[in-house]
């Protein structure tokens, strides 16, 4: 499971959707020390938009440890802006078969998983139908 230190380190991206915008215009989520596009290292912090569309998806029916209470688990790759995609669960679907490529979604702050009854609770964003 994820340690407290590692979880804390990732709060800006998980909680606030913070990304790094390079001086060349490339947006990196998560941030990196060097831009893979122009090799530059001058960034400003931006917040990603919350609306996007499904690029591809699946419904995980055999879940990994930590997600057995959330099965079936719809997961999508969502494009938030040109060149910026994010892997997220899709929440609030009455039927996972509703999911389709191109579906408009928005991101909402949600509980993602939890480490038993006494461990950490991991928060982040899930997509819902928009």
């Amino acid at each position, binding site marked *: 499971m994820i340690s407290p230190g590692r979880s804390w380190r990732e709060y800006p991206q998980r909680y606030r959707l913070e990304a790094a915008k390079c001086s060349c215009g490339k947006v990196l989520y998560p941030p990196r020390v060097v831009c893979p596009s122009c090799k530059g290292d001058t960034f400003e912090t931006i917040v990603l938009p919350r609306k996007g569309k499904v690029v591809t998806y699946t*419904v995980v029916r055999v879940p*990994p*440890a930590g997600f057995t209470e*959330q099965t079936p688990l719809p*997961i999508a*790759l969502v494009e938030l802006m040109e060149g910026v995609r*994010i892997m997220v669960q899709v929440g609030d679907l009455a039927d996972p078969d509703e999911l389709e*490529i191109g579906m408009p979604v928005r991101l909402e702050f949600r509980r993602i*998983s939890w480490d038993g009854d006494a461990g950490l609770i991991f928060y982040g964003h899930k997509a819902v139908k928009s």
Partner: protein
Amino acid sequence: MRDVAVIGVGMTEFGELWSDSLRTIWAKAALAALADAGVDEVDLITVGCMSPGLFVGQEHLASVLADEIGMAGVPSARVESACASGGLALRTGFAEVASGLSDTVLVTGVEKMTDVDGSDATYALGTAADQEWEGFHGITFPGLYAMLAMAHMERYGTTVEQLAAVAVKNHANGLLNPHAQYHLKLTVEDVLSSTMVADPLHLFDCSPVTDGAAAVILTTVERAKEINGKRPIVKISGSGLATDTITLANREDLTELKAVRLAADRAYAMADRKPEDMHVVEVHDCFTIAEIMATEAIGLFEPGEGGAAAAGGLTALNGKIPVNTSGGLKSKGHPVGATGVAQAAEIVTQLRGEAGQRQVEGATVGLAQNMGGSGGSSIVHIMEVVK
């Protein structure tokens, strides 16, 4: 560079080998390859193994294994590239012999996956994907390939029946391979009625959890001619290695396995060969969609035509270009670190004309494509009979 030959192959049965430990499995394959080559000393051992730490709680594997067969003192190195660790072990050995650093190398691949339960095995395999930004949300390995399959189906009209056709073909080939984990004839209906793992992939679209090891012996073609009497000498004429983004989020094109295309291009260029020159091919069919996308990426078929090619019988044992005559990862089994070496062993066996019932008649040129994660790395080798 010196020309490099494969002069020996060996592998264990693949399956749930409850009575054997990792080191026992490995030793059996290594000794079989040494015996097949007629060699008892090597300058180097390479070990492809993805995660002995998570699967059996043992690191420092290169030394453990050299010692296991009485070769403590011999240089030994473990290399890792997730499920392409075996292919990387082969490439490492190839580079050593080609460069003159070593004359004879024992190349091995091994994984012991059934000493942990299914949940721990899933976790260990999952570490080949991006844990922080994709695994965090609950995506599994079948889930990542399912997402690639969805994108391929959307763009090219690939169908679940075409995916199933890959499983049916590879299980038919596996029936003819005594080392295969499953000797199980499947129909398209069997695949489509099996449990859904991650839409659109069913249980029979997925390769299994497997214990096993494979080994090959490399030396120079010059030395091979001295010691290898009557059998055809098989040389490695091309080797290509490439990477791609680990996260699907950063892939420009979700319908192409770019690392596979780049690795294949590099191997073809080194061998001065083209896709249409191949007589027999092993690809990394960890999932049925992976075989379809791999056959496109190595240039056997145009992008989008891999599914129709499989369903149309073009890749069957008696087809235009037989793919995964061993049964592939699907039927032969997928001990992840061993897979790349086992693929090479199958191509060598085919090129030597020793593949028995699954022999592709007259095969003199073949290709093996190994892949890590959901395409984050790939290694391609081209092999041919020395005339």
